[in-house]
């Protein structure tokens, strides 16, 4: 390894360099230049510069810590995204030593110091066997020396992007071996750009080539933000076989390319194929005689868009154009529609329906829930990425020490879950003011007498009359109607006063909960900081990123609760159906069932002559992660430091709705994942441990809001811990320590008498 190797080589010379030195993209561009194609001028920053930067900044240790925290196969995509974000922030924060920055800046000046495109060129990236298109970052419109140096670090960091980490096995990623070169070129603005394929990748055995074009930049096509015009032509002759126009906001427009443009593109594809020795996949810009090639690689049979969930995840990556469109649809159409659907179901008095009509209601509710689950996946989850988009945007502009500082901007949002917790606290407060009422309600939640509304009313009527009792009864029922009209663990929570009363009583027994100090961070101040950092030219863009980030943050919780209301309404119908079937002697009185029983229950209602009803068994809860073998016990578990703080308390595992009433103030809440339907328990907890990981998930959000330590992403937490285990939750470091330090086993060992004489 010669130390004298160049950190920067002209793009025209990159064709003679080894791919492992300049990466596949730079090498191919160099060869295209050599063959006389028009390619934007530029230079390549070799992998040696990346290596030197990593060595000088000690970033390898940062990457290793992020990727070594737990088996990557057990990380959810939220955790992978978090790891990638922290790595990216560390890259941006690491200074670029002068001996690396110097040659880059010199090459930039020699290029003419205009607007730039800065693209990844990872060794092996554009090989014929696999394409890694879209896994690493490319930036266009980069301005100025500092802008270039920042862009280079962002591209380097994208070697460890969330998308790349998902494909780490295919990419053979290894902290000690993976490297990245960077292509820096003049940014060529054009009114039309696109891609071209020497063979149609979908029908590679046929005589077909394909060209796609979009108005403006190629990035909009590659990112999927703009729907392209598409031509299929004969590979052999260039004859046009098919044209399909892209969808434009202005309606159907005329084709973006003329016949002459397509002829030039066809000839270029053939020439590039001769050069590379295989059919190429080319990105291009501008038309006819000005056709300029931005990159070329072999068409790959299998692209990263495989058939697993990873392809779906990649489709979620935040893109402002897509987020803008989703924002309008989600906030203006879908959320109001979802809310109205829940209200419409709630307004139906099911008890007035005959069996056939009740069966119809079950079917309607089941179908509605299924439809909304599809919408949730296809539109709500992608929209939730608005918050991630804000995070990246904020971090790039502000460079905070804490890569999650941006979450402060999201504070004080009106969320249903926060409103509910405030209402719950008011109920507890009203009990605290009347000790006699508390005594009257003592033990009621666990008595088994208020497991339905009728029982609740009966018990309340039997209480000694007092103004406080008179006020509490309707307030409590209004709380159930308004906030607990959701489902958890196949229970319609508003049908179970005992589950909520237990929580209210437990809250009332302690003092009022102090909300977390904001820590001096003020959402408005951070917003100003972001706007100042981006400057007046990008102010409008930044305001929009903040607006969408806030809305997506708010809806992240609210959409779940609104979905829970639909499920709650399905549960109401199912329970009524079950009651009727029990009365008819066709169903066991203690039968437990989930929403999976909707079909059989509806069918049984319609089939009056039918016999006993068999319901599908409830699914056993899933076990996640690696279980410890017998005889092993966890002493210290690691996860993500999702909310800061340090607290010790006994474990309370929340698996089902019955656990609500067992929860005592000061316990550590342990669960698989805190759903918005159980966040009302959190104010009782002294700390939170979750199996599901992520800095931006519900549990982490509410823990930070309440100032509770939270460690999440702890593999198998609910299976490895037991109720009552004493644990210390370190939300600063992401560590859960099990049990007090003790030497019982060592003390219990009796010395072998033969050991001493």
């Amino acid at each position, binding site marked *: 390894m010669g130390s004298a190797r160049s950190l920067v080589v002209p793009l025209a010379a990159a064709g003679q360099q080894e791919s492992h030195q300049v990466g596949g993209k730079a090498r191919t561009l160099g060869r295209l230049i050599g063959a006389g194609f028009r390619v934007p001028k530029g230079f390549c920053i070799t992998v040696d510069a990346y290596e030197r930067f990593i060595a000088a900044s000690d970033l390898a240790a940062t990457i290793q810590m992020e990727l070594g925290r737990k088996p990557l196969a057990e990380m959810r995509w939220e955790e992978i995204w978090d790891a990638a974000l922290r790595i990216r922030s560390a890259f941006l924060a690491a200074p670029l030593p002068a001996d690396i920055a110097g040659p880059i800046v010199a090459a930039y000046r020699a290029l003419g110091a205009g607007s730039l495109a800065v693209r990844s060129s990872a060794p092996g990236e554009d090989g014929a066997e696999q394409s890694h298109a879209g896994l690493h970052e490319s930036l266009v419109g980069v301005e100025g020396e500092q802008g270039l140096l920042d862009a280079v670090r962002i591209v380097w960091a994208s070697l460890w992007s969330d998308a790349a980490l998902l494909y780490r096995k295919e990419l053979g990623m290894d902290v000690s071996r993976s490297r990245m070169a960077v292509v820096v070129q003049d940014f060529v603005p054009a009114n039309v750009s696109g891609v071209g394929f020497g063979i149609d990748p979908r029908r590679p055995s046929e005589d077909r080539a394909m060209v796609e074009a979009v108005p403006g930049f190629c990035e909009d096509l590659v990112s999927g933000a703009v729907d392209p015009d598409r031509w299929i032509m004969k590979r052999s002759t260039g004859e046009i076989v098919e044209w399909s126009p892209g969808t434009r906001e202005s309606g159907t427009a005329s084709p973006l390319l003329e016949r002459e443009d397509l002829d030039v593109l066809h000839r270029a594809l053939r020439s590039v194929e001769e050069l590379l020795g295989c059919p190429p996949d080319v990105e291009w810009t501008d038309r006819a005689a000005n056709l300029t090639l931005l990159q070329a690689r072999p068409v790959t049979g299998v692209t990263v868009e495989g058939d697993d969930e990873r392809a779906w995840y990649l489709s979620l990556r935040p893109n402002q154009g897509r987020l803008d469109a989703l924002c309008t649809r989600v906030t203006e159409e879908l959320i109001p529609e979802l809310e109205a659907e829940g209200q419409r179901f709630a307004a139906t008095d099911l008890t007035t329906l005959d069996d056939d009509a009740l069966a119809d209601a079950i079917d309607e509710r089941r179908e509605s829930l299924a439809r909304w689950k599809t919408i949730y996946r296809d539109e709500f989850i992608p929209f939730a990425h608005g918050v991630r988009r804000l995070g990246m945007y904020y971090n790039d502009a502000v460079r905070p020490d804490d890569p999650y500082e941006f979450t402060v901007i999201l504070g004080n949002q009106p969320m249903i879950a926060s409103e509910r917790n405030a209402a719950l606290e008011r109920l507890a407060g009203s009990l605290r003011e009347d000790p006699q009422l508390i005594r009257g309600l003592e033990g009621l939640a666990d008595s088994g007498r208020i497991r339905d509304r009728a029982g609740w009313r009966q018990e309340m009527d039997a209480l000694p009359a007092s103004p406080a009792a008179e006020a509490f009864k309707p307030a409590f029922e209004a709380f159930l109607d308004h906030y607990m009209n959701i489902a958890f663990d196949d229970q319609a929570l508003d049908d179970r006063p005992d589950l909520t009363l237990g929580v209210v009583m437990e809250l009332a027994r302690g003092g009022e909960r102090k909300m977390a100090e904001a820590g001096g961070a003020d959402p408005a101040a951070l917003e100003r900081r972001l706007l100042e950092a981006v400057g007046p030219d990008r102010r409008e863009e930044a305001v929009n990123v903040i607006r969408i980030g806030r809305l997506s943050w708010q809806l992240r919780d609210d959409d779940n609760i609104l979905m829970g209301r639909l499920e709650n309404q399905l549960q109401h119908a199912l329970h009524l159906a079950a009651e009727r079937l029990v009365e008819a002697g066709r169903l066991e009185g203690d039968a437990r069932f989930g929403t999976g029983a909707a079909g059989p229950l509806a069918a049984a209602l319609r089939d009056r002559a039918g016999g006993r009803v068999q319901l599908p068994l409830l699914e056993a809860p899933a076990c996640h992660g690696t279980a410890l073998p017998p005889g092993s*016990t966890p002493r210290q578990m690691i996860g993500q430091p999702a909310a800061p703080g340090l607290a010790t308390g006994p474990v309370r595992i929340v698996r089902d709705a019955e656990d609500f009433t067992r929860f005592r103030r000061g316990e550590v809440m342990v669960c698989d994942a805190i759903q918005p339907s159980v966040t009302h328990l959190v104010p009782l907890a002294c700390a939170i441990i979750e199996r599901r990981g992520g800095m931006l998930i519900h549990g982490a959000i509410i823990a930070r809001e309440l100032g509770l330590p939270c460690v999440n992403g702890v593999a198998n937490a609910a299976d490895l811990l037991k109720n009552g285990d004493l644990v210390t939750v370190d939300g600063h470091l992401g560590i859960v320590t099990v049990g007090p330090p003790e030497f019982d*086993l060592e003390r219990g060992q009796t010395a*072998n008498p033969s050991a001493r004489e």
Partner: protein
Amino acid sequence: MPIEDEPVLGRTVDSDDTAARPLVERIRQLVTGQPFGVLCTHGENLAYGSLVAFAFTGDLRYAVFATPVATRKYRLLSEHQEVALVVDDRPRHQNDMMKVEAVTATGRAEEIRGAPEMDDPVQLLLARHPQLKNFLDARSSALFRIRIARFLHVSRFQEVNQWVPQDPS
């Protein structure tokens, strides 16, 4: 609550992670793979540590090591049996802290004197460290056996699991 949440990605990706192995196997591999460990002793209100060559029995209930008698550690061991033996694989992962594994084995160290009790521990140690034959034969060497109370296994920098060797009786 069956509301569909984001799918768990990565589950489709095979893990080559060593964490999939049972804890006891990871401990066994570590203590049989590493010839030396740090023996922690105490006495006179002070802590002390020394590097020792060791060997474990197959059931991991005992470890053996030897020491010259004219040493600080021998004197401390004569007074206090409570010890810890720390074994780690740093040499295998010098550049990646997250891959380093370590065990702290705690227990009581007993000096073994005279046959027939002497044979097995000597053979155990010699099988692992044949170069120590002369050292073990020397009249000034003492052989110790640690009866293990528990292993605390550390991986990924902070993940700690305990394993207690089972008494076959």
